[in-house]
């Protein structure tokens, strides 16, 4: 028995080291893919980017062109979405954390989580039927609203989680001093959770900055600088989509350059958030 056991033992140890190596290989592989994607964007992007490109509007093929209006459109719609989505999301999150331990809170929590998983193109269709059809045209307003709807459940849930991290002792300490509940929440709990809520908000903004599908038929696109929210509006992502699926090499180069800007913004936000949270916790 001793011998068969040691044979078996050798095989088991071999299996174990093979499997541990394989799991490490999985990690190496995926990290390599990430680096591959990012380095591709960097190389192709940097080789076709210029200051003029960042200011210009799209032009007929062969005459150059740029993404100035797309950047403006993205900024305007993201700002609109943040102005609508952040307050609602944060307030909803406060409710869930402070008063949400009942059936209604559970239902909302469940709906919010499933809403986060609902494809963003569905939100686009919804806004199309709700805003675009009655208005008779696509608009930056519709695009921004679609992005706001995507933000709300994300912000609500992260806000809730951050508030729940605030120790009960802090609440009770303030309540014991005779402070009304709303003051405790507003002046004590919320500031204590503010860094967490802010990072959650930044991540949500990064997320909607990269959204394309909900803008395709709500904001549509535009070839011009447009400062009016009731008009169709260009965005970085839709512009990348159009350039990428265009037939000409010049367009593809512009797609990479625009992607460099987009991914740059998003990665900077993500790294910044990581840096801020690491410092604090």
């Amino acid at each position, binding site marked *: 028995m001793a011998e068969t056991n040691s044979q078996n033992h050798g095989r*088991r140890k071999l*299996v174990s080291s093979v499997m*541990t190596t394989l*799991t*490490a*290989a*999985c*990690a190496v592989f*995926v*990290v390599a893919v990430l680096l*591959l*994607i990012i380095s591709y*964007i960097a190389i192709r992007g940097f080789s076709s980017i210029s200051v003029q490109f960042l200011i210009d509007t799209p032009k007929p093929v062969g005459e150059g062109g740029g993404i100035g209006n797309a950047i403006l459109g993205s900024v305007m719609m993201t700002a609109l979405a943040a102005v609508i989505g952040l*307050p*609602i999301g944060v*307030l*909803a999150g406060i*409710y869930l954390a*402070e008063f949400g331990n009942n059936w209604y*809170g559970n239902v*909302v929590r469940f*709906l919010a989580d*499933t*809403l986060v*998983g*609902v*494809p963003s*193109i*569905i939100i686009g*269709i*919804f806004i199309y*039927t*709700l805003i675009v059809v009655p208005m008779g045209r696509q608009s930056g307003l519709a695009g921004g609203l679609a992005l706001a*709807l995507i933000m*709300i*459940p994300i912000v*609500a849930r992260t806000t809730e989680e951050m508030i729940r991290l605030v120790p009960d002792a802090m609440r009770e300490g303030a309540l014991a001093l005779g402070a*009304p*509940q*709303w003051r405790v*929440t507003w002046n004590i709990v919320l500031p204590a959770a503010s860094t967490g809520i802010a990072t959650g908000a930044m991540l949500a903004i990064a997320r909607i*900055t*990269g959204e*394309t*599908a909900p803008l*395709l*038929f709500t904001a*549509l696109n535009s070839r011009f600088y447009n400062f009016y929210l009731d008009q169709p509006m260009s965005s970085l*992502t839709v512009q*990348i*989509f159009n350039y*990428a*699926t265009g037939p000409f090499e010049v367009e593809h180069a512009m797609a*990479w350059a625009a992607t460099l800007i*987009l*991914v740059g913004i*998003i*990665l900077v936000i*993500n790294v910044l958030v*990581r840096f801020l949270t690491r410092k604090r916790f």
Partner: protein
Amino acid sequence: MAKTGTTGDKIFRTVLLIAVSIIPLIVAAIIYMMVQNSLPTLQRFGVGFLTGREWIPAQETFGALPFIYGTIVSSVIALIISVPLSLGIAIFLVEQAPKNLAKPISFMVELLAAIPSVVYGLWGIFVLAPFVRDYLGAFLQKYLGFLPLFQGRLTGIGMLTGGIILALMIIPILTAVVRDVLEVVPVTQREAALALGATKWETTKVVLGNAASGIAGAVVLGLGRAIGETMAVTMVIGNSPQISASVFEPAYTIASVLAANFADATEKIYLSALIEMGLVLFFVTFAVNALAKLLIIGVSRRNGVAKA
């Protein structure tokens, strides 16, 4: 003073209640608007809409089966690739890697999730598709070409490329959820196995057994994301309403047919057909997400009980 306190509390609570109620309102409004706007096709085609194989908008023939098929095939390919990889990474992060290595790797995997869909699409068109055409597809055709799965013309644009892109996109969420459920498994489970003379891998298998339903939940969640993923797939899957056995062939997914056609749909019945597709997508992803949530909650609950 006490009175102002209670009035303040009432106002505060009401404001919060209004804000939080916007979430169920959104869900209800989505369902209402989409049902309302897909009534023309719902009434005209009924269930036949889902089983019809022909999609010819000009003739007002709307059968959604090719899209359902394309969605299923590309999602299955995505799961086949991403599930083992994500399990491997999560096991590596929780069971093997030292903390100072696990943290940066975790972060890098999370960064994959931060990259926008349209960027994956761009990368898919210009990097992945040529790779699939020239290397991966050629390899598969050479050695497994006798299978109908790997026959036909290799363009690099099709269900396989779509599936690979989807796999990359869902790896972060799969990995994160699996990592979380593995971390919930009590350390005493690992020590029990080790004390019985289990090897590292045998111990890991005990941990996986503990986390089984959470892992299933992660897979379902990944499936939900794969089904709903839109832009990247639209850009590499070829957008053709056909049902073919070969994974090299172009196809459509439900989400990509919406992205590619919605802006052009001017006739009421065509728009209604597309919105009905959206409704189907909504309910499928909603159900899949709900199922995933139940499975994942199960693990933490059970381990909470086992710990006590």
